[in-house]
């Protein structure tokens, strides 16, 4: 029995069109009355219209999601919409609506609606609201578009739209130098990944003359199985896969291109929520998940993805422990959690990775919006100037706690299910043989690689529990550390609170919901998310319905144990004060002798190392500065000596020549006539004695 009287899947493009219409309308109204300051019916109207279009898009996305998952299954449109035809090359796009893309459509539009509603209250005191709204509308259009299209070229276009919007929105307060610099950093660093994406597109089109996902994947997977692909085609696929991962590394902020994401905190908190939960960073995970059928053909690539993910997870988590800016803690936790998703993808746990993507989207949107509420209430982002907020901001505290439980991996809360699934797939990743790393520099058996990834993942799970609750306790527990005379902490207005409450329901129960569904029908989530080309490849964790097998998994126990230990450690340190964080980090405290301080040099060095973000920013600046200076000197030489030399030389030559010829123009007409006759004679002589003999004429 059909769920709905009509098949909505071919109309999925409307979900992209709706936010696009919102963008165009708000942009037009921005142009019409550029000087709209804060508030007023004109601005409110734009906000309401924007929220309305995304909400409509959410409803449609949800219906399509239901049709794909419950009713009709995946849909790939037959006739693509043609963009341009150049000779024999037809560029266009169709729709690729399967379990993965319909799930993302729903998550993206749903969270965007929540964030937009929240913005109406959070951004109310800002100027330039039209600019804010049309930029987030375009951002959402970009993400929705990237998810529904069926080929790499259009995905790349929407991907670039997102790159532009992230730049614009991070630099929303562009008159602030740090915001302008963060916007440029985000744009340039993700641009490195974008270039890789373009390489992949060129390689794939060159080899196979199509960019459509299903055509490419079917052709390549069948060709690899039958061994009919030429060696250069196999190389093209391998490199394209690596380049796509490179693109994802840039967009999803993985090591070594993770440096832009923490700085992206310079934008409004709602923008951070949009970038971290719904759009942008999820695009990298999506494109990698989408490409997994061809990535899975090369275990070396998978190993690289897994090890990069595991290392990034660890690196980001260690930095999250030492930062004091509440948004930066969340930013590093995003990097860390995205890295878990890449671990899942790299060890072929596609279902687990997407499960984590979904859970992370909900709880990270909640946490960011919660931190926005805290910032709204206290006027600061520094956790050292918060504390004791749980009585004054009750709703914010409880919802933030819900998100933190999920992030920290407390049993039965959504993040716990998916994180454990990812770690379990990592433990079971064993393609056999030996992994050979980038350019053959690293070699290790896959068992060692899997163990390394698992160990890093487990350690990170413990650190995650610690930094999450460090954040909760520093912000909401203890005594107020702000100036109570000056700062009047207040709970946020109703639209913000309502969004937080709705999101906290999803953050708490999205995992349970999926688990409940798999109790009814085993592994239904994996079944829907995983492309049929991959079904025999991916690792599927047994459904919790078979609870004995599920509970017999040692990874589950280990990760739960370390996460809870991390939470307990944070409780003892930041809630009870039994352990002094300064003592552990070897930092100076009042009433402490210099001898004791000197003894803690190693700990202090480690703390400084983490605080300096592992020196990545420093390294980038050094490499970029040195490389840049050399390149600039070289280009300067080319520009000033070679290019300018050529153009100036031509000018000087022409000038000197004309100075000579000028003498001939003496103003005496009969001399001109002489030149004419002389030229004619010369022409005739040339024709007769030079041209004619050569051509063989008379």
């Amino acid at each position, binding site marked *: 029995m059909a769920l709905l009287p009509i098949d909505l899947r071919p109309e999925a493009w409307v979900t992209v069109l709706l936010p696009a219409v919102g963008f165009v309308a708000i942009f037009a109204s921005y142009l019409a009355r550029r000087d709209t300051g804060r508030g007023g019916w004109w601005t409110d109207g734009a906000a309401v219209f924007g929220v309305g279009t995304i909400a409509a898009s959410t409803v449609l996305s949800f219906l399509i999601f239901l049709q794909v998952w419950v009713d009709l299954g995946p849909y790939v449109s037959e006739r693509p919409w043609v963009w341009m035809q150049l000779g024999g090359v037809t560029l266009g796009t169709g729709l690729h609506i399967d379990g993965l893309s319909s799930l993302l459509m729903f998550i993206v539009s749903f969270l965007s609606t929540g964030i937009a509603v929240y913005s109406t209250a959070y951004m109310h005191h800002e100027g330039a609201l039209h600019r804010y709204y049309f930029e987030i509308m375009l951002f959402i259009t970009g993400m929705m578009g990237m998810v529904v299209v069926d080929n790499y070229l259009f995905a790349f276009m929407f991907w670039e739209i997102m790159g532009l919007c992230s730049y614009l929105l991070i630099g929303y307060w562009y008159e602030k130098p740090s915001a302008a610099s963060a916007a440029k950093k985000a744009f340039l660093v993700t641009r490195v990944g974008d270039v890789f994406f373009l390489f992949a597109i060129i390689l794939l089109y060159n080899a196979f003359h199509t960019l459509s996902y299903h055509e490419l994947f079917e052709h390549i997977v069948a060709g690899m199985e039958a061994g009919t692909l030429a060696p250069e085609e196999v190389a093209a696929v391998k490199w394209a896969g690596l380049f796509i991962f490179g693109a994802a590394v840039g967009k999803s902020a993985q090591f070594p291109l993770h440096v832009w994401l923490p700085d992206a905190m310079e934008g409004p908190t709602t923008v951070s929520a949009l970038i971290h939960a719904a759009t942008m960073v999820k695009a990298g995970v999506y494109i990698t998940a989408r490409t997994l059928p061809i990535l899975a053909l090369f275990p070396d690539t998978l190993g690289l993805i897994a090890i990069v993910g595991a290392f990034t997870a660890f690196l980001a988590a260690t930095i999250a422990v030492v930062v004091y800016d509440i948004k930066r803690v969340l930013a590093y936790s995003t990097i860390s959690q995205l890295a878990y998703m890449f671990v899942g993808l790299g060890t072929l746990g596609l279902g687990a990775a997407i499960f984590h993507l979904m859970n992370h989207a909900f709880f990270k949107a909640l946490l960011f919006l919660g931190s926005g509420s805290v910032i709204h209430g206290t006027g600061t982002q520094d956790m050292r100037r918060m504390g004791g907020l749980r009585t004054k901001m009750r709703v914010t505290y409880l919802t933030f706690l819900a998100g933190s439980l999920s992030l920290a991996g407390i049993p039965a809360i959504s993040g716990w299910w998916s994180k454990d699934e990812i770690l379990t797939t990592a433990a079971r990743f064993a393609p056999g043989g030996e992994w050979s790393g980038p350019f053959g520099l690293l070699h290790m058996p896959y068992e060692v690689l899997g163990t390394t990834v698992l160990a890093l993942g487990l350690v990170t799970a413990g650190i995650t529990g610690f930094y999450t609750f460090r954040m909760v306790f520093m912000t909401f527990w203890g005594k107020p550390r702000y100036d109570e005379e000056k700062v009047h902490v207040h709970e946020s207005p109703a639209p913000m609170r309502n969004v937080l409450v709705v999101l906290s329901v999803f953050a708490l129960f999205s995992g349970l919901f999926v688990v409940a569904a798999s109790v009814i029908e085993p592994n239904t989530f994996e079944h829907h998310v995983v492309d049929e080309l991959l079904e025999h490849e991916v690792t599927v964790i047994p459904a919790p319905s078979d609870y004995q097998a599920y509970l017999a998994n040692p990874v589950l126990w280990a990760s739960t144990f370390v996460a809870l230990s991390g939470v307990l450690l944070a409780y003892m340190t930041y809630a009870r004060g039994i352990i002094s964080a300064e003592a552990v980090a070897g930092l100076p405290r009042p009433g402490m002798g210099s001898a004791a301080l000197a003894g803690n040099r190693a700990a202090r060095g480690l703390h400084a190392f983490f605080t300096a973000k592992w020196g990545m920013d420093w390294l980038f600046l050094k490499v970029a500065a040195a490389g840049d200076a050399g390149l600039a000197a070289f280009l300067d030489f080319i520009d000033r000596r070679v290019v300018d030399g050529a153009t100036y030389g031509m000018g000087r030559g022409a000038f000197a020549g004309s100075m000579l010829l*000028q*003498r001939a123009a*003496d*103003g005496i*007409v*009969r001399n001109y006539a002489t030149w004419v006759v002389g030229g004619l004679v010369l022409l005739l002589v040339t024709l007769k004695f030079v041209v004619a003999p050569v051509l063989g004429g008379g």
Partner: protein
Amino acid sequence: MIPLDWYLYAAALLLVIGLFAVTRRQNVILILIGIELMLNAANLNLIAFSYYRGDPGGLVLAAASIAVAAAELAVGLAIAIIVFKNYKTIDTTELNALHG
């Protein structure tokens, strides 16, 4: 009967004399006369070829050429008169406002 060559030599001689007048003389009137000589050298060739080939086309062309030459000369002399009125000279070495 006079051979065709003679006419051609005569025409070439006329052309060179005309050319000399155009390129070497300073007086505008003499330059115009030189142009006339060159034109008539061409006319002489046309008529000579027309006669030797028995083709009246050359005669027609020469007649048209003479008419055009008359008109051209009228314009040239008129310009010479205007130039004299303005500059009190028709010496081309003095009329050198075009010099670079």
